[in-house]
């Protein structure tokens, strides 16, 4: 079974689905939705089989496939997945069907073609899977850039207020980062002996100066994508303007490409430069945690608020990556998964609130819990998961990042911990102002606010809630997959964990 070309099939399948959906007649939107949903469930089923087939104690890279593409430049369609990529692929496969189901009526309000909306979602899934499955730097770059196009149209054509501005800003920011990376990719090709193969390139010795420049080229692209402070200003606009489903994918998965890229490309390919730049990267990450959290406290727009919380969370992931310990690294990858689940849920629930109220402004709500108690409860749960309450999955990852960082860099860990307090502030205050307190009289006159979660919406939120709880209590299946990949990455960087002072901490995390 392990000979089955999982990764290429997973990449191509959504694209085929997208073509099918795009050519469905515009007059039959329901059929398009059903086909899209069915197709994404098929991808999910295949991913589950792949997850089961993955051997935890096997090679670092599994499911390797390689087909020639442009032999003149040494470019191949090479796919391979390590534990980190596998976790991200699972996250995509889980989120996309839920997003499709959650966006059931989103496209109808925009006067644009409904089948095209769902086709774009599937194209986006194809490019997201490709970017995590690629083991050829050129192929990775191709997916990295092409990913912009479907997201651009999702925001620009189906988004809300200021969608044009947000879409263009998103595209230009990402393109600027991508072009820096293009120069670095070609530079890497030149110094690496004219190959784009990841494994071959990770063996190459690069002179110090060149290595730092190449690291910077990649890092800027990933820092814009992630986004890290100070490259973050596009995210609140894009997240605020995108339709809720697309925003969930944007923040839940697309931005993880940045942190994934740092782990997969910046660290193993340029280990010395990574160490040299680590203090700077840590600094940016810590500033991002505090600064974005403070801005989130002050937001009045729910979607922008959630976007800012994500920037703070990406700060945590950045800290976890650049602490260079196995615990922190595992925590960072786990954080990428958990943040995808928790923030994905939060965005989807916010979308449900916004659709009902017809406004994303916090001040337009107030006491909504009295009208839609179940929705308010899910909203509260998503908020708690987002602030990493013990018992929810994000707690495990945040805790791992912090203890992993504390063993090597106490000041950073201490400052980052402040971010948890701020997280409590922005989440609880947001919940209090929207669903708790006295009922805003204006709400009672809106028909939408009288409908609580319907079956479709319950089906959307239930799996995410279940996953957040299960991984909150029993993260072992995921950490087992991540750990070997992180250990290999840390070996690439040449950092070994400090000897544990009590021994028990290290054991406990296993």
């Amino acid at each position: 079974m392990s000979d089955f070309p999982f990764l290429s099939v997973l990449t191509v399948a959504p694209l085929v689905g997208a073509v099918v959906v795009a050519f469905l007649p515009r007059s039959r939107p329901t059929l398009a939705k059903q086909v899209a949903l069915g197709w994404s469930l098929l991808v999910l089923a295949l991913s589950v089989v792949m997850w089961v087939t993955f051997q935890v104690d096997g090679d670092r890279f599994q499911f390797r496939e390689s087909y020639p593409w442009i032999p003149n430049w040494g470019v191949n369609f090479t796919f391979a997945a390590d534990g980190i990529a596998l976790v991200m692929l699972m996250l995509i496969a889980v989120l996309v069907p839920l997003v499709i189901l959650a966006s059931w009526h989103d496209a109808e309000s925009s006067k644009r073609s409904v089948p095209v909306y769902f086709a774009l979602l599937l194209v986006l899934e194809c490019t997201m899977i490709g970017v995590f499955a690629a083991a050829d730097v050129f192929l990775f770059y191709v997916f990295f850039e092409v990913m912009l196009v479907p997201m651009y149209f999702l925001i620009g054509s189906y988004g809300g207020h200021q969608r044009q501005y947000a879409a263009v800003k998103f595209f230009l920011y990402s393109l600027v980062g991508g072009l820096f990376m293009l120069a670095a990719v070609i530079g890497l090709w030149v110094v690496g002996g004219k190959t784009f193969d990841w494994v071959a390139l990770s063996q190459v010795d690069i002179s110090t100066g060149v290595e730092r420049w190449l690291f910077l080229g990649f890092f800027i692209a990933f820092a814009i994508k992630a986004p890290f402070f100070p490259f973050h200003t596009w995210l609140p606009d894009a997240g605020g303007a995108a339709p809720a489903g697309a925003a969930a994918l944007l923040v839940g998965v697309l931005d993880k490409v940045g942190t994934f890229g740092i782990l997969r490309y910046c660290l193993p390919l340029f280990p010395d430069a990574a160490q040299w730049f680590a203090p700077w990267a840590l600094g940016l990450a810590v500033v991002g945690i505090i600064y974005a959290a403070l801005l989130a406290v002050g937001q009045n727009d729910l979607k922008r608020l959630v976007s800012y919380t994500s920037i703070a969370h990406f700060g945590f992931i950045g800290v976890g990556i650049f602490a260079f310990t196995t615990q922190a690294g595992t925590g960072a990858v786990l954080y990428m998964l958990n943040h995808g689940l928790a923030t994905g849920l939060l965005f989807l629930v916010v979308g449900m609130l916004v659709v009902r109220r017809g406004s994303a402004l916090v001040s337009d709500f107030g006491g909504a819990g009295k009208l839609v108690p179940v929705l308010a409860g899910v909203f509260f749960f998503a908020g708690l998961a987002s602030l990493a309450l013990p018992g929810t999955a994000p707690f495990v990852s945040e805790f791992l990042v912090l203890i992993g960082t504390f063993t090597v860099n106490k000041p950073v860990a201490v400052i980052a911990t402040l971010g948890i307090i701020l997280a409590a502030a922005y989440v609880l205050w947001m919940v209090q102002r929207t669903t708790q307190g006295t009922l805003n009289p204006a709400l009672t006159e809106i028909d939408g606010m009288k409908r609580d979660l319907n079956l479709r919406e319950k089906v959307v939120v239930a799996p995410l809630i279940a996953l957040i709880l299960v991984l909150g209590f029993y993260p072992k299946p995921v950490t087992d997959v991540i750990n070997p990949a992180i250990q290999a990455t840390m070996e690439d960087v040449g950092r070994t964990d400090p000897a544990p002072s009590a021994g028990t901490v290290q054991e406990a995390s296993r």
Partner: protein
Amino acid sequence: MTELELPPIDYAAIAPILIMLGAAVVGVLVEAFVPRRLRHPVQLPLALLAVLAALTMVVVNADKRVITIGVIAVDGPTLFLQGSILALSAVALLLLGERAVERGGAFVAQAAVTADSPEDRRQAESAGGAGEVYPLTTFAIAGMLIFVSANDLLTMFIALEVFSLPLYLLCALARRRRLLSQEAAMKYFLLGAYASAFFLFGLALIYGFTAGLGDRASGVDFATVNAAVANSTASPVLLFAGMALVAIGLLFKAAAAPFHVWTPDVYQGAPTPLTGFMAACTKVAAFGALLRVFHVAFEGARWDFTPVLGAVAVLTMVVGALFAVTQTDIKRLLAYSSIANAGYLLVGVLAPGSEGLSGTMFYLVAYGFTVLAAFAVVTLVRDADGEATHLSRWAGLGRRSPVYASVFTFILLAFAGIPLTSGFMSKVAVFAPALDGGQVWLVIAGVLTSMVLAFPYLRVVVLMWLSEPGDSTPTVAVPGAFTSAALVIGVLATLALGVVPAPLLDLASSAADFVR
């Protein structure tokens, strides 16, 4: 008196040129003797057949590596570039021959009638189009074929004139906006004449420089110039001045800054199908000549010309990108985009070795097809007054005609260098050898200007898709079969070269060797 000895002529090697010249002469005869209503139906197939026949001869010649009559080099780059010019010309001819979009076609019969006079208005409104367009274009194509194969500067100069003169005239034949068209032709002619003069003066200086070879006769064929660069005892001032002046003549045709000022005006004023022809084919010809002159004749002076041409390349990229941002007319925007692309092509010209050569040739083909498709769309977006080229008129086009807006979006993404389009592959094809050759600063400039250039392209996409259509949004004309064919070929080539570039890259790298 000694008998004049004729040099041996390899007729097969120059067959493509002979076919095009012959077809042009026949075209002139057709104009003279065939009844008016039959001319268009005869001329277009004639020109297309000639192009296909010439293309066949290029393929037949594929393995030829000769210099015939001492002045025509038929080698890998020549054949590749001739094939490119012919393939692109075939597509351009389809656009030139379209008569379904506008009554009488995009060209008027008489260029010299005073603009806006009653007679001029009458011919613009009702008179049939000029059949001379076809022989003129065929002459231009023949000139370009000679231009890329010329192995001495004098032949190159003659070829330059052969392909330029018809273009000057064709520019003045636009059916709409006659004044702009005449202005464009006048500007192109005057500035082109200056450029030719520069070229000729440079040629003379180079001739003087080769006199310093001593035992060898002086001349302007590239082997002699190459030898002179290495061994001449003449003052190097002659070489540098000559090289600079020759380069100016060629860079003018290539639309490189600071010799680009004609480009936006001419691109805007010329009939749009012709603009597409110039943007695609003239670019191939100009860069083909630049490649040969700098890789064969002046190879020995590489260290001397690289910094200067590098500065020109950077300036070209910067000027093209920055001015593209401020444009409000789609044809002028595409003109500045073509200037910026000339900058990227120069990066490829300056990359040493055969990889730079093959990358540049790949870029030329890829860009040619994309730009032809772009101008094909421009010919279709029109209202009662002809083409609606002002950008504000394109607002909401995606709602009115989603198919053409999608096609144009794809073309713009290709210009912006998004992967899975030929635009991305061609950027890699020139940047990789440049970086390999150590020209980091050129690549950095290329990357930075690409960022700037993405903005104007994206603005058009935003206009088409994300703006609401207004009352003034024109409809897209139903294209005739020819325009449709040209559009389909251009778009498919852009996609194919972006997804499976390997065959053409293989061909280009196997052709990347000059015969010396």
